[in-house]
């Protein structure tokens, strides 16, 4: 009470000072927006504007407004390039992303459930082993060697299982954080009712994990769709193109079609951009939560 009183008093006395403060605040606001736009929006403006240009204009590498709008022609040309390679790539990347996410959801949530609930030395060791995967760099050639032993090198099965293996630690981390918040009484009630472990999980726990499921889907979708390194190693071959590799269609030592290259960049950035538009809060909180708990 007395605080509000003294505040109104000081307001009357210092109304001029307050005006000055507001002005400073406004300047800070404008400054923040401008600086942030220069550093973070100009590169995207550059991509968009060059995706609209003709080949000669784009070769200038400038942010000047296009003299001729060719966005539609460029996109068509990008899609048709190399016998519709971009469409193949979108298909391949989508298959890899979707299937590995489905695997991650089931496999990851089950594992996190047991790892969190089961109190034993073994489950602690296993937790540590999974967490280590957040740090350890994957061993490249030995992984290829293992894939070859099973005859799944250069196959969808191979790349999907590798993507799943690499994302399992982070997925388990996300699920464990959420499962820890589900009271154990729920389990106990189910056990008294005579529910088995598998049923307890599928009928009760799994449906409760809905909020994390969506976080797991979105974060893994961005990571796997944008992944360049692992398809490069474990899914090589021209018929196996993934979207990230299509960027190299228009680059050569001597002559790069910058307008087509940036039209391609634009096209493959649309999926993550859509996710960002609809789920930015989810993505941000998921990444922050996963990271802080790690």
């Amino acid at each position, binding site marked *: 009470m007395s605080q509000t009183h003294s505040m109104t008093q000081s307001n009357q006395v210092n109304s001029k000072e307050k005006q000055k403060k507001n002005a400073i605040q406004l300047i800070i606001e404008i400054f*923040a927006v401008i600086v942030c736009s220069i*550093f*973070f929006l100009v*590169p995207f403006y*550059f991509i968009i504007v060059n995706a609209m240009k003709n080949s000669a204009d784009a070769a*200038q*590498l*400038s*942010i000047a407004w296009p003299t001729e709008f060719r966005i539609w022609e460029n996109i068509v040309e990008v899609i048709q390039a190399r016998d519709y390679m971009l469409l193949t790539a979108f298909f391949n990347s989508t298959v890899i992303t979707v299937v590995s996410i489905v*695997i991650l959801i089931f*496999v*990851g949530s*089950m*594992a996190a*459930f*047991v790892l969190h*609930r*089961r109190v034993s030395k073994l489950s602690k060791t*296993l937790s540590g*082993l*999974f967490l280590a*995967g*957040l*740090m*350890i*760099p994957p*061993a*490249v*050639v*030995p*992984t290829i*060697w*293992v894939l*070859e032993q099973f005859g799944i090198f250069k196959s969808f099965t191979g790349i999907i299982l590798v993507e799943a*293996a690499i994302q*399992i630690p982070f997925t*388990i981390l996300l699920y464990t954080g959420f499962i820890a918040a589900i009271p154990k009484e729920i*389990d106990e009630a189910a*056990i008294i009712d005579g529910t*088995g*472990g*598998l049923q307890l999980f599928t009928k009760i726990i799994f449906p409760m994990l809905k909020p994390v499921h969506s976080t797991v889907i979105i974060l893994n979708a961005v990571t796997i769709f*944008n992944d*360049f*390194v692992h398809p490069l*190693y474990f899914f090589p071959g021209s018929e196996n193109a993934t979207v*990230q590799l299509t*960027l190299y269609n228009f*680059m050569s030592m001597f002559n790069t079609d*910058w307008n087509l290259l940036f039209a391609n960049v634009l096209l*493959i*950035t649309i999926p*993550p*951009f859509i996710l*960002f538009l609809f789920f*930015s809060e989810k993505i941000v909180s998921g*990444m*922050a939560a996963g*990271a*802080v708990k790690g």
Partner: protein
Amino acid sequence: MKSNKIYSYWLLLPALLIYALLFLYPTVVSFFFGFTRWTLTEWEWIGFENFRMFFEEPSLMIGFKNTFIFAFLTAGLKVVVGIFLAVILTSKLKTKRFVRSTIFFPVLVSTIAVGITFSVLMHPSEGLINVVLGMIGIDGPDWLGNPNLAIYSVALVDVWKGLGIATVILIAGMMSIPNDYYEAIQIDGGNKWNAFVHITLPLSRPAINTVVMLALIGGLRTFDLVWAMTGGGPGFSSDLIASIIYKQYQAGFYGLSTAGNVLLFLIVAIIVYPIFRFLNRKEVDL
């Protein structure tokens, strides 16, 4: 624990199987194949030969130096700039949603796309960065063509791309600090700087630690950004251990490439683990 039985290890098995087969097992056998000359079908034990190469060949040796520079520089910048941004974005700024979204979006864009775009923006004569610098009378450097500078330029782009996630984690850390602390320091007559040094910094320690760890781990393992921007060049001047692993693999030196993997594993373990322990110990001291 009687109820343990219900949490059957069978539920864990699928995850463990995939992870063990395609992640743990390759990691373990890398400690064998790193000591061989290897064609994937045949191997020949050659002892420490591969590792000796890594330490004697200047073109391989430079990977260590660059990996350290890259990891520590990007981690440091992400923390410092991230704290600055997080402080601004937890203030009363009305436009903070816009600013936060703009800074965060690059996190979701493909590294290769970012790398290609910036290699154009960093073009020595026509690139936007040097054109703008030229307007204010600065003769911009050849960002990616100068062998002494290339790795630093790539590191800056990595900071640009990864700053969003660092900032978001730090914001989460700062938001979790109870307001009472700030009120207390205000009553004691402390100004904003005091509040920052005595409350914000120490109490967002866990978030700062997380950012340091994530940035270091990411930085030590990075490959795609360098590959997209310089290909390790000019010469070998911006090669990282991870890009050397790729180059040796492409050249068919599988044993040498795997030795690189072993070294990277050891470096991550030697650097990250003690720092992890150190940062966490400090936290307890508070």
